[in-house]
């Protein structure tokens, strides 16, 4: 069902954990849908993401996308981190099953939420960053099935 890369990131997640007094923390998703991601960023005075950690409640794909997202933003500046899209996360994982695409959206959203928190705390505006939705699944509905 999953690619080797997804399985690798699920079994050996990179950057799993917490950062105390993080520059920015973002939590997205909801327990109702079975996925919650929390992203911690440590951003230095030059705006470089020095460290990143995550915690995730969710399926194998949710863990793997969180893990890959942390790898993709680590060492980057804020603008580069904003360019890490769900598509980039998916490609880096050699793809996801269609029902798991929402996990990669969640990973992108988690990065944005953590950056938003960082901007709020520091009273700055990040160009191109919108206030994250509190619930990634807002407005997302199951497709009507025909019987």
């Amino acid at each position, binding site marked *: 069902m999953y690619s080797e890369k997804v399985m690798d990131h699920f079994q050996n997640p990179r950057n799993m954990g917490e950062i105390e007094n993080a520059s920015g923390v973002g939590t997205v998703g909801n*327990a109702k849908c*079975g996925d919650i991601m929390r992203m911690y960023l440590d951003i230095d005075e030059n705006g470089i993401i020095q460290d990143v950690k995550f915690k*995730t409640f*969710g399926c*194998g794909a949710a*863990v793997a996308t969180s893990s890959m997202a942390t790898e993709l933003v680590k060492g980057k500046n804020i603008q580069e981190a904003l360019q890490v899209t769900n598509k980039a996360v998916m490609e880096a994982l050699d793809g996801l099953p269609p029902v798991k695409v*929402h996990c990669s959206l969640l990973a992108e959203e988690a990065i944005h939420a953590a950056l938003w928190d960082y901007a709020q705390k520091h009273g700055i505006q990040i160009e191109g960053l919108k206030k994250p939705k509190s619930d990634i699944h807002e407005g997302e509905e199951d497709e009507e099935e025909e019987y």
Partner: protein
Amino acid sequence: MKKIIYLDNAATTRTSPKVVEAMLPYFTEFYGNASTIYELGTESKKAMNNARDIIADVLGAQANEIYFTAGGSESDNWALKATAEAYAAKGKHIITSKIEHHAILHTCEYLEKNGYSVTYVDVDENGIIKLDELKKAIRPDTILISVMFANNEIGTVQPIREIGQIAHEQGILFHTDAVQAFGQLPINVDECHIDMLSASGHKLNGPKGIGFLYIRKGVKIRSFVHGGAQERKRRAGTENIPAIVGLGEAAKLAAQSMAERTAKEAQLRDYLIGRVLKEVPYTRLNGDRVKRLPNNANFSFQFIEGESLLIMLDMEGICGSSGSACTSGSLDPSHVLLAIGLPHEIAHGSLRLTLSEETTKEDLDFVVETIKKIVERLRSMSPLYEDFVKKNGGERKNVQ
């Protein structure tokens, strides 16, 4: 291949080697069509009648009340759709429960789109149907009550005799989906007032793709597959003789070994439940403690998600299943776990383990130790657990 501990017997079972042995001659030796008049075909017919007799005997039914189908889903579809059609003049109302298999629920939804109305009766926190609500749901135009014998996820065994009695007192037909119960629990169709009963071969160490529908004599229910005169003209198509023979053999073996086998399974099940509840904190048992299938254990581990748990168990060679949304392909967790009142996040963290007669205590010891390690690891990764620990200082207790 590494050793596999197979604990997903509610999904399917290993076909018994004895069953395979019984089936084999009907592929290459006695391959005749049972509808023919020459001796080769007669062999097939004899074998089929023998299987029918065995099943009828197990249920306390007549042989001509057993109709072979391609499995549980077909039997459920047939029972509901054909009854709805045949009794439409009397009424268009059906009563079922909220925790039925999708073969029932989706068929009911289909019927609702075609002018029928369906009442889905609630269950209590253990998954037992609320009989008072069932009684209240009955209307003058109610034609059928369909309630499963035992639930496939949480193993709860329903008060089938009482439900049958309620149905018959009101002159309503009673169907039960006994896919999980047949071969696991003693069933007598007369004592339980059952008019129709669905069962499937592969849940009792028989082959896949074969099942039957018991239809009580006198119930007018129409042909499901039109064509030849097979199955008393009610289900056309050349009979799958090897599978029918396999189903008969499986039913015979299951009936013979039932008392001893299920007592052993129930003992191991209770051992597993006891250890998990005691040794894994923030864990609950889903389903009734006593009124449950002898081989079913279903847990919810708070703060973790079921699919992750299943993948990690699989890496250790343990096969289980979960009511998590991720395993169903939708965003909602199991309708059964929601119906017993579990919050979504706890329903997502469920694990179903279903034993077989081959399961040993050593297997279960390994499973418990593995579960402990995996749950601890997944909780260390969980933001929900992090929040909980920060809020409560990590006090250990079981979830209510």
